[in-house]
């Protein structure tokens, strides 16, 4: 039996009261929360690179796909004789506001260079922070032209801008129409109304007339990127009587659109995508046989390049069954630029790094085009697009002819006859 007088010294010996324990648990919770939800700690020596991606929120699927490009980069960079990068992970939560605050936080925690952020709105926010703080920012994926039109000295983009993507897309489409011997006379244009979608919509209005396309846009339908139901949008597109669907979307909405096409018993002649979503692995996994057929006109990779094969092998080893795609390629190349610049600069000084990035000249790369070089605006303007098609759970390149590895399947197979 223990008396209270015996208990008191025991508690004193332990040096821990219930109140202190509760406070400790609370503090541990706060610390654990801070560490887990936002920023991963940098490991090892080398240049500290803050990688900002939408790892949660509506773009989480794509953000995590980009992360695969980060994961497979280390081994390849080592093989190329490039220095180590200490990766600091940041989650933009698919929001420009969060992207801004996470960028500030990563810099305050010691990031010497930033990479990201898949989305134009989020990349714009990060670019402002990077320029203000004088920290180099390499954009992996973001197509809105204004980002590199601001006269920024610390912002670099190895990804084509919307008008380039569209110009190449229209050229590739005409090549495919010629190969198919037919083409749609009208299309319904559906796009997300975020920064990227609006930039693409503006770009289409400006670029399409110059390409003398054989179809007209019957109706333009904008929708919320966080939409949970696209039945009205698809019903409206179907009601236009358009023969094909022209889309600028993300991943979740691409899946929703396909589901609605099936449910509303509408198989257009073609789905012509000018953005992400339709070639993602999550799209294949979710829709199975229904994922076959869409054509995506996107910045892609040249399968004949040596580094492309290396990247494909590394991805297959790390993530078996996942197709190499834009997310992996351009995230990897952003890190390639960072490591290459760090090696040449021989310093983590932001200005020296920015100068080294500006002088980048990488010809042994992955993306379609002659290589990675930045113009005076910090934009790689030598990139070109490919047309790819979903075929039996794989992605094949169908245009331009010079790098195609498959012939076009046309028209889109009927959704109700796929078993």
């Amino acid at each position: 039996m223990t008396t209270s007088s015996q208990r008191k010294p025991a508690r004193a010996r332990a040096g821990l009261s219930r109140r202190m324990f509760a406070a400790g648990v609370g503090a541990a919770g706060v610390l654990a929360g801070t560490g887990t939800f936002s920023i991963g700690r940098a490991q090892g020596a080398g240049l500290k690179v803050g990688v900002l991606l939408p790892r949660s929120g509506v773009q989480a699927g794509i953000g995590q796909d980009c992360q695969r490009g980060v994961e497979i980069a280390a081994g390849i960079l080592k093989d190329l004789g490039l220095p180590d990068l200490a990766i600091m992970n940041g989650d933009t939560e698919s929001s420009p506001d969060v992207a801004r605050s996470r960028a500030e936080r990563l810099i305050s925690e010691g990031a010497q260079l930033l990479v990201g952020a898949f989305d134009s709105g989020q990349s714009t926010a990060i670019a402002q922070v990077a320029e203000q703080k004088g920290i180099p920012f390499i954009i992996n994926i973001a197509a809105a032209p204004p980002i590199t039109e601001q006269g920024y000295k610390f912002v670099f983009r190895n990804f084509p801008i919307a008008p380039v993507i569209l110009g190449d897309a229209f050229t590739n489409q005409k090549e495919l129409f010629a190969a198919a011997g037919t083409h749609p006379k009208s299309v319904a244009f559906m796009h997300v109304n975020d920064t990227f979608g609006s930039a693409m919509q503006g770009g289409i209005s400006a670029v399409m007339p110059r390409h003398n396309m054989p179809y007209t846009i019957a109706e333009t339908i904008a929708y919320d990127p966080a939409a949970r139901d696209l039945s009205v949008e698809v019903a409206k597109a179907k009601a236009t009587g358009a023969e094909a669907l022209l889309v600028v979307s993300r991943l979740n909405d691409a899946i929703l659109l396909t589901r609605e096409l099936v449910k509303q018993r509408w198989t257009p002649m073609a789905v012509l995508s000018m953005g992400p979503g339709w070639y993602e692995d999550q799209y294949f996994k979710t829709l199975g046989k229904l994922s076959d057929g869409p054509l995506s006109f996107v910045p892609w990779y040249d399968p004949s390049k040596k580094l492309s094969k290396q990247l494909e092998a590394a991805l297959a080893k790390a993530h078996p069954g996942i197709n190499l795609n834009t997310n992996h390629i351009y995230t990897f190349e952003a890190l390639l630029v960072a490591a290459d610049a760090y090696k040449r600069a021989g310093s983590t000084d932001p200005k020296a790094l920015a100068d080294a990035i500006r002088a980048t000249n990488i010809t042994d790369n992955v993306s379609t085009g002659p290589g990675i070089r930045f113009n005076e605006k910090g934009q790689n303007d030598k990139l070109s697009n490919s047309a790819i098609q979903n075929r039996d759970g794989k992605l094949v390149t169908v245009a331009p002819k010079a790098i195609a590895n498959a012939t076009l399947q046309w028209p889109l197979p009927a959704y109700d006859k796929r078993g």
Partner: protein
Amino acid sequence: MPADIYLNVAVSGLLTGLVYGLMALGLSVIFGVVRVVNFAHGEMMTIAMYLAIALFSAYRLDPLVMLVPIAGVLFALGYVLQRGLINPFINRPEHSQFMLLVAIALIMVNGLLIVFGPDAQSVQTRYAFDSFMLGRLIVDATKVYAGIAALVVAAALFAFFRFTLAGKAIRACADNYAGALVVGLDVKRLYALTFGLGAACVGAAGCIMVLLVDVTPPLGPAYTLLAFVIVITGGLGSMPGALIGGVLIGVTEALGGLLFTPSAKSMFAFGLLVLVLLFRPQGILGKSPS
């Protein structure tokens, strides 16, 4: 635009609205009796959605079949929450209640993120891509099943409040709190029961909703807001009002999106809310304070 498209979209909006209504019904029941606004309402629905997904992934159990067990789990969660955490706040200022429920909501969202991750998840039932064709009308089969299930659950809830002793006692508490105490009703237990019923209701709505939309942990706050819009439109505390509000919002969003621009369809739901607040502040079926 062909005329049948309007009918197609209106029917789709009606069926979705029934599910919205069921979700809002839970919020209305809780507020009508306990007088606490459940700011964790949408988050509770996402918990039910994830439970349905987990059971579907592990055992291929259809969310409609699991509706009753999952509603039971949510009932228990609601009951315990009310008895353990919310009850001490019943007589405290509204801002204290607000902070408590927002904290609970945040814990739920982050708990779901830890357990299930941020990826959108869904169930792929064998009827996921089916649709019924009635002349030129094409109706999504999943939405038909969802609408029917929502009606059945709502009818069961109405019957509970109308025909059972516990239901009558809860209504007595809502009508006259002092009177309920005077006649010896165990108000604390009835409050917990009511909160549990509201949670069960939103749990059932989650099982149905998971058939229609993909779920991510941050989905909760959007549905909490939607539930508020619906109950304020239908009349705070009115059960039939919540259902009518849900249907009105569903149809308004659908037709607004069709007639104008789909990206602004939420604007029409809020527009309807503003109109109701201007011309009938107590809501369509709400009681006037006077």
